[in-house]
Structure formats: C-alpha cells, structure tokens
C-alpha cells in the first residue's frame, strides 16, 4: 500500500531539549497507526508538528506526496488533516451543533461580505454545512445532545463531540490525541468501536496517540513506540509490545 503520510527525519528542539529527535515513519492509507511511549516521549509534540502548531527544527512532513512542512496551521484542516486534543478543546459556550458547524469551517465558500449581508450564497453554504453536521450527529448517535451546551455535557460525551467536530472537516487523515484519556472502561470500549467505524465505514486514516494498551492492540494496524523523542520500535501491536526496549522503557530493569 502507498504511504499517504510520511514524516522524514523529523526533529524539534526547545532550547536545549530535543523533544523529537530524527523520527521517521510512514502511514499507509486506510490504517490505524498508533504512537505510544512513556510520558514526555514526544507523542503530542509530533501531533503539534503535524498540525503545524510547532515548526520542526529539521525534517519534512509529506501528505500524499506534497510537502506540508511550511503550510500555516489554519490551512492544515483544508488539506484534510483533522485532530482532537488531549484535554478537549471544545468551544465551551456553544452547543454541540454549533461546535460541529465550526468543524465545517474549512469548507466555507461564501465570502466575508456575502456572509455579513447574508446573501443567498451564504444561506446555501449554511444549509450544506447543517446537513453535514447532521450526518455526523447521526453517525455518532449524538441526536439527544444536539442543542446542549458543551459546559453541561459529561466528559465522555464531550470526547465524542470532539471526535465529531474533527469528522465535520471531512478529513483524509485524523489525529486522535489520547482518545481514551478520562474515559471509563465501557466508554473506552465505545471509543474503540467509533475508531473502527471511522476506519472501515468512512475510510479515514487514523493516527492515534494512546496510553491504554488494550485500546491500542484492539484497533491499531501498526504501532510506533517512542522514548525521549526517538523511535524505539515500529511494527504490529504484538511485535512492539514484546520488543525488549519497549518493555524496558515501561517496566524498567533489564528485560
């Protein structure tokens, strides 16, 4: 299978710390690719590099053969990369529906002035986005929360809403930053099913940072293990879990 996303010798340095140190990996179209590693291994930093919030010190990011290393952060969504955040960055004072509609933002066609005057083109745009948001609501079963404010939703539902907001951007590549953090066992299992559905029904490629090994082994095709910003192991979940370096990094001692 062809690589849809490639990180080439990626490094980023904050002062004297190399948070990510010449990391290279390829993600194939249609797979679930997990990144694991102990705290501070540089997992989220890689996400922030891909979504262009950080600028890499060296290295290249390629999406579908196109170099995206110098694309500004706000254009990444338009290229088909969507993401969720570790600590949920939803828009607190808006309803679920409005959050999903913000996800549609990168597909807005109407100009600023036609929006200010609410010309027919702006209205058409809105109706298209509304249908898109309703599709996502139906897909994730969020109907009963449609008009609920984020502030009054339980944590587990917020995680699903954030996933939905990312889906509204109609991504090719979805970055999930710890989708199971803060969820209980059943909710984590549910999240696993959403991720499989996203991969199988919507055909979206997923890169996921995750600590919960049961979720990782249940859904991922390949796993990348990081430690201190360097690649420790790369392979199927089973290969990585039994890799001596990985075991040593997690459990310590001389395995």
């Amino acid at each position, binding site marked *: 299978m062809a690589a849809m996303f490639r990180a080439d010798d990626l490094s980023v340095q904050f002062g004297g710390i190399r948070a990510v140190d010449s990391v290279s990996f390829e993600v194939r179209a249609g797979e679930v690719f997990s990144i694991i590693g102990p705290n501070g291994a540089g997992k989220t930093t890689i996400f922030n590099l891909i979504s262009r919030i950080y600028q890499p010190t060296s290295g290249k990011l390629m999406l579908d053969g196109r170099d995206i290393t110098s694309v500004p952060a*706000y254009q990444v969504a338009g290229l088909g990369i969507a993401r969720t955040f570790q600590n949920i960055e939803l828009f607190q004072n808006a309803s679920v529906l409005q959050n999903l509609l913000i996800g549609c933002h990168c597909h807005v066609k109407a100009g600023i002035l036609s*929006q200010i005057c609410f010309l027919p083109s702006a209205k058409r*745009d*809105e109706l298209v986005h509304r249908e898109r948001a309703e599709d996502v609501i139906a897909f994730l079963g969020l109907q009963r929360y449609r008009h609920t404010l984020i502030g009054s939703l339980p944590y587990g539902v917020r995680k699903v809403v954030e996933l939905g907001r990312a889906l509204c951007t109609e991504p090719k590549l979805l970055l999930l930053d710890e989708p199971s953090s803060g969820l209980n066992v059943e909710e984590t299992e549910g999240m696993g099913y959403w991720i499989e559905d996203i991969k199988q029904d919507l055909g979206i490629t997923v890169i996921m940072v995750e600590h919960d090994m049961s979720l990782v082994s249940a859904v991922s095709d390949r796993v990348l293990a990081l430690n201190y910003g360097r690649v420790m192991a790369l392979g199927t979940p089973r290969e990585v879990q039994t890799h001596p370096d990985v075991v040593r990094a997690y459990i310590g001692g001389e395995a």
Partner: protein
Amino acid sequence: MRYLFKTSYSQDLTIWRHNGDLFWYGLLAAVMFVLPFVLGTFYIGELGAVFIFAIAGVGLMLLTGYTGLVNLGHAAFLGIGAYTEAVLLTAGWPFIVTLPMSGILAAIAGIAIGIPTLRMSGLYLAIATLAFGQIVATVLEKWDSVTHGFDGMPVPIPSIFGVQIQGATGVYYAALVVLVFSLWVACNILRTPLGRALVAIRDSEISAQSMGINLALYKTISFAVAAFLTGLAGALFAHYVNFLAPDSFDILLSIQFLTIVFVGGIGSLHGVIFGALFVRLLPQAIAIARDYLPSKLAHLPGLEPSVFGLILVLVILFEPAGIYGRWLKTKEYFQAFPMHRRSAFRRQRTYTRSERV
C-alpha cells in the same frame, strides 16, 4: 412554555424564532416610529443618544463579547467617525457619502490597531488599546488644520434626498435606521460561519486554528467591523452634539461603552440595548439624585465616574450575565412557575454564554 417544532434547516437560519417574535419586534418598531409625535424634544434627543450608544455598543459587543478582545480605546473610533463626518460635510460632500465614509475611515483605523495587536490578549491588549485611544485623542487635539483643535468644530446640518436631518427628531430617525442596520449586520454575522469563527477564537484559539480558522484574518475582521459600526455611530454623534470638541472622546467614554457590554450582558445583542439605556439614563438619574443628596456629596466632582465604576464592578461580581441574563432568569422563573429550580442557571454562571451563535 412554547415548544418549537422545526421541519427544515432553514428555520434555524431565520432572525425570528417564531411569528410571536416577529409580532413583538414589529410592534416595537411601530412604537419607535411614532414616538417622536408623542414625546417631547428632550426625551427624543435622549433616546437618539441611546440609539447612537447602542450602535457603538453592537460594535464593541462583536469585538469584546463575541471575539473576546477587550478594547479600552473604543471612543477613538467614535471620534474618528465624528470628525470624518464633520470635515467631509464642511467640505461639501453629501451626507449619503459622508456617513459610510465615517464608518470606512474608522474601519481602517480598526485594522491599523488590529494588526499590530494580533498576538495580544487580556490585559496587554487592554493597555495597547488604551494607548491607541490616547493617541487618537491627542491627534484630534493637535491637528489644528483639520480638526481646529480645542477651538472645536461646528457640524453642518446634513440633508438626504432633500430632507434636512435636523434637531432631535432628525437625529432620532437617522440613528434608528442605522441601529436597525447594525443589528441586522450583527445578526447575519452571528448566524454564519464568520460569527462562529469569532466565538471559536474567544473560546479556544488553538482548536479554532486546527479547524481551519485564520486567527489573524478573523481578529482583524472583528476589529474592522466593530470600528465600522462605531464610526457610523460617531457620524450620528457629531449631529447629536452639533459641535465637536476633542476632549469628548476620552477614556471615560470608552469605559461607558465597556459598561454597555458588561452591564447589558456579554454575548447578547439584547444586552446592548439594555446596556445603552442604562448608560444613558444613569447620568440623568445621578443628576436627579444630586438634588436629594447632602450638599457635600452632591457637589462632589467625580461622582458620576465613580458610580459608573462601582456599578461595573458590582455587575461583574454578582451578575456576570448582565441585565439580559437577569431578564432570562426572570422569564424562566415565570415560565416554570411553580417548578422553578434555583440551579437552572448555575452551570452557565461561570461562562460567558452566547445568546445565539
């Protein structure tokens, strides 16, 4: 209670939620239209001023209430609009051109302050805009050849389609039309992706960016639109006062505009109207109260600004949702009576809740 049964997505895009809304706002518009035939000149003049402040308030609400950018120099936009109007009218331009020009020049000033402050927020932005307000006030004072400095500047009486906009009634109707226009603009912004982008920036810049929102562009647009509306208000303000002096656009006026936004209810267009009424009527109330206060207190020079400041602090402490929030709570109380729950609004108290985005 009323339950709305929606059958199409476009129902969510109308300005009126239902025909009841249309009826009440229509009635309000009709009352506003006939009011000058009923009330005396003094009250009409005051109401005109309320409208002018409300227009500027709509601008500041978009900027501070929805985009989350504090502006302590908002009076500068009003000043730029007012002087543009006066200078261009004196030069013989027609009112139909000078009015939009006032807005456009203010919008350019808005972009000029918006771009260098893109990375600022909170206190830093407040200080930067405060400085901007001072700079504009100083320019208005010192640029003698255009503004006539402290000598002041008379504002010619404009006419539109041969009708002179004169006196309290003329300003009243002009301000009413512009106010309806600016509310329409604000409603459109709030029901389109533009408004959602602004609210997204207020709530979380990092995820707004990841959703494809260009922070620099939208913050600048927010400044430009806010300044444009305030510039229009400035043009009308020039006709309201008839004679411009540079010291009327100082920090106190900026604080009055912020009071409109906070006391009215942050994140709500209804709140702007309530806030403007409050800010314009409070000085009248203080003037009346002076007659009854002990003479030492009554002749205290700083009484008015102190009362403004005190009320602003009290509202932020005890009713962050402002007058409009209080109105919603009262309405909920009666709609749910006797099943009212004390906690119905508790969760939203800590957030600035948007009326409609």
